[in-house]
């Protein structure tokens, strides 16, 4: 056993948790990969749906989203991509923005952007699929 120099009840894990430039430990690393694999699994059906949509007018688009599996596939993809891009952009910000205040503002704006885009897309899909 490697005893720490000063006696402490804290485990090594507790000491490194929430460290790193984003203060969120390794959870973002894991979620970035989780959402990446999710989108890799979803990409082929998503492209098929997009091609179907591109070939139709507005009434046809609504008709396509009235299919429950199609709506769910698109919702899953939007959720995964919004999460993925939020983490990715935060990494970019942390790499290039070194002024602490501008960095915080950028990270906040990034969160706003990703949540707004995701919620707008999800709302649109739910509206179409419920036929309102």
């Amino acid at each position, binding site marked *: 056993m490697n005893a720490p120099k000063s006696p402490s009840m804290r485990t090594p894990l507790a000491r490194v948790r929430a460290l790193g430039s984003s203060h969120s430990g390794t959870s973002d690393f894991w979620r970035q990969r989780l959402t990446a694999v999710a989108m890799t699994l979803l990409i082929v059906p998503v492209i098929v749906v997009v091609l179907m949509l591109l070939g139709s007018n*507005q009434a046809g*688009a*609504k008709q396509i989203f009235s299919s429950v599996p199609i709506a769910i596939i698109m919702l899953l993809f939007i959720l995964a991509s*919004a999460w993925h*891009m939020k983490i990715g952009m935060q990494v970019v910000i942390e790499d290039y923005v070194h002024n602490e205040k501008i960095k915080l503002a950028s990270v906040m704006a990034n969160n706003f952007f990703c949540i707004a885009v995701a919620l707008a*897309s999800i709302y649109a899909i739910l509206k179409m699929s419920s036929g309102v």
Partner: protein
Amino acid sequence: MALSIVHRATGVALYFGTLLLAWWLIAAASGPGAYANVQAFTGSFIGKLIVFGYTWALMHHLLSGLRHLVWDLGYGFKANEREALTWGALIGGISLTILVWIIAYMTIGGGR
């Protein structure tokens, strides 16, 4: 090969490209008039160029990202393997983009 910066750049492009995707979905949910506006834009030359660029960014980022997942799992670190993965992502990304657009033109005849 300096492809990791391309992975990052395509990621940032896709990030802002989601605005187009969200606009399109909201328009589809709003009504025929709003949807016609989106179709007019995506059917224009500049619109097609953006959507083509978006398709490439997506395909490249996908394959380049799979390359990173292979490295995460601890494989593909030999010099020749790294080269193969990198060229595979580069050529594969361009090939898949062209393939998707060929399928788009064949199935809907517009490629919008």
